[in-house]
């Protein structure tokens, strides 16, 4: 069994070139939006806007400027499926289409998925959506096909600044930790790792180095598993059923109007 593999993305060196986005689309033969007649977003240099069934990588541009646009900075972050160790999408999928691979990554088998879309709402990161061509839910496979052949995923291969690092999780964590310390040493006190430890969904096999709050990057501060609500939801429903049942039995039983 190979060891868990994944991505460590250092957002501080991302330059927003979107080479990863393009490489991903090329390798996975993902279609263009709206047959290539895509609209410009109009309020950002980013026109992809979000991950979905035909965008498995998305470089987010976070434009932090003051009102006069004198002071400011760009935060760039190449977003992708987090390949959660405890994955909400995998948990709810009723067809068994979503599986965990030998590399500890999460993959949707497109020939099994029937497009029920439960996984879309279950993913805490809004990663999955329907690919209109296949009619099934799709997302990053961490290039399962390439990995099987011992190759680096297309995005990491294409990244010119080594913002996207691919490798065994164990090594990536060491590398990331060293980088955080280096940044702290240089005065960037805000640098920290998002999803590198087990507290977040058992660990994200695609984790990030960030320099601002997760919300700023459009990442949930406290992602959770969908089944956290299962027990309570079922208990309240059962209680509702008991109350309705008892009220019903009493109403149907105790009748004054026998002879009407």
């Amino acid at each position, binding site marked *: 069994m190979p060891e868990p593999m994944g991505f460590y993305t250092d957002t501080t060196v991302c330059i927003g070139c979107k080479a990863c986005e393009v490489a991903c689309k090329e390798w996975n033969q993902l279609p263009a939006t709206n047959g290539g007649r895509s609209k410009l977003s109009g309020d950002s240099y980013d026109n992809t806007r979000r991950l979905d069934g035909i965008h498995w990588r998305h470089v987010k541009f976070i434009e932090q400027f003051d009102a006069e646009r004198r002071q400011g900075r760009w935060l760039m972050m190449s977003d992708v499926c987090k390949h959660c160790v405890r994955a909400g999408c995998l948990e*709810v999928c009723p067809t*068994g289409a979503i599986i965990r691979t030998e590399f500890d990554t999460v993959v949707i088998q497109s020939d099994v998925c*029937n497009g029920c879309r439960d996984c879309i709402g279950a993913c805490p990161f809004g990663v999955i959506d329907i690919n209109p061509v296949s009619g099934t839910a799709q997302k990053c496979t961490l290039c399962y096909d390439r990995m099987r052949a011992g190759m680096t995923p297309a995005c990491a291969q294409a990244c010119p600044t080594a913002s996207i690092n691919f490798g065994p999780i164990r090594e990536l964590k060491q590398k990331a930790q060293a980088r955080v310390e280096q940044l702290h040493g240089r005065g960037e006190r805000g640098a920290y790792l998002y999803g590198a430890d087990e507290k977040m969904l058992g660990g994200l096999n695609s984790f990030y180095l960030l320099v601002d709050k997760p919300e700023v990057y459009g990442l949930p501060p406290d992602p959770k598993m969908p089944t956290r609500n299962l027990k309570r939801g079922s208990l309240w429903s059962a209680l509702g059923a008991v109350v309705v049942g008892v009220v019903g039995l009493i109403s149907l*039983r105790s009748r004054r*109007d026998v002879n009407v």
Partner: protein
Amino acid sequence: MSSTFFTEPPHWRWLIILYFFIGGLAGGCYFLASMIDLVGRPTDRPLARLGYLIAFPAVVVCGILLIADLGRPERFWHMLLQSATWRPMLKTYSPMSFGAWGLLVFSAFAFLSFLGALGEDERRHRFSFLRPPSVIGTIVSALGGLAGFFLASYTGVLLAVTNRPIWSDTTLLGAVFLVSSASTSIALLMLLGSRRVFLVGGLRALARFDTFVLVLELITLVALVVSLGSLARVWLSAWGALLLLGVVGIGIIVPLILEVRAHSPLSASARAAAVLVLVGGFLLRVVIVLSSEAI
């Protein structure tokens, strides 16, 4: 901000809203019918029959809606069988998976009771053994009634077992849907039964039941809003207005007033109340589903 606001909507729209509504009626009409059959008076049997006659066709419609909503309808059976091995596909902890089986089981009971209810007028007919008071009929009705309760509520749990705003920010949606299916199903039976004078006794009991259930629905809705805490501000919008005016006003308060005033369950105002309850139950599902989808 709740972490649920960083997720994407699953595009569950009108087909799913319709399913939630009609599924609620199917489950609700069945459990009402089984309660009437099991504890009601013999004179109420036609009302129970009506419930069974609604439940099965309604659940067939549900199946069609659900299959039509899939991205790949021809693969609907992947919910029940693993497509590679043909072994059963069941995850007890996924409401979508468990619910697919629940729907199947309910459909089986609904079918049997439908057969049992077909020829009521001829007293004894080929399938009358499928309805109480026969032993088999009693077992079918009791188990089917439980499955009906399940069908009426699991959809709310299914919404809760996601990471979407509102849906997964409360655990009360299952209970809310269940109570609402009870009120809408009572309303439907009252409406369809209201032309038959000889059912007046049973209808009066149903009307009393409905009053209790509507009050219960009001309480669960208030509890729902409270359980959302500060997130309820999402409903400081057109959705909230629809919830307040449509679901609570038109669907609960006005019918309650009409029911209290109605001198007979056969009267026009009782019928109007029933129609409004049905409208309110539908709007409830519209608000719950679409107000989260819009985020």
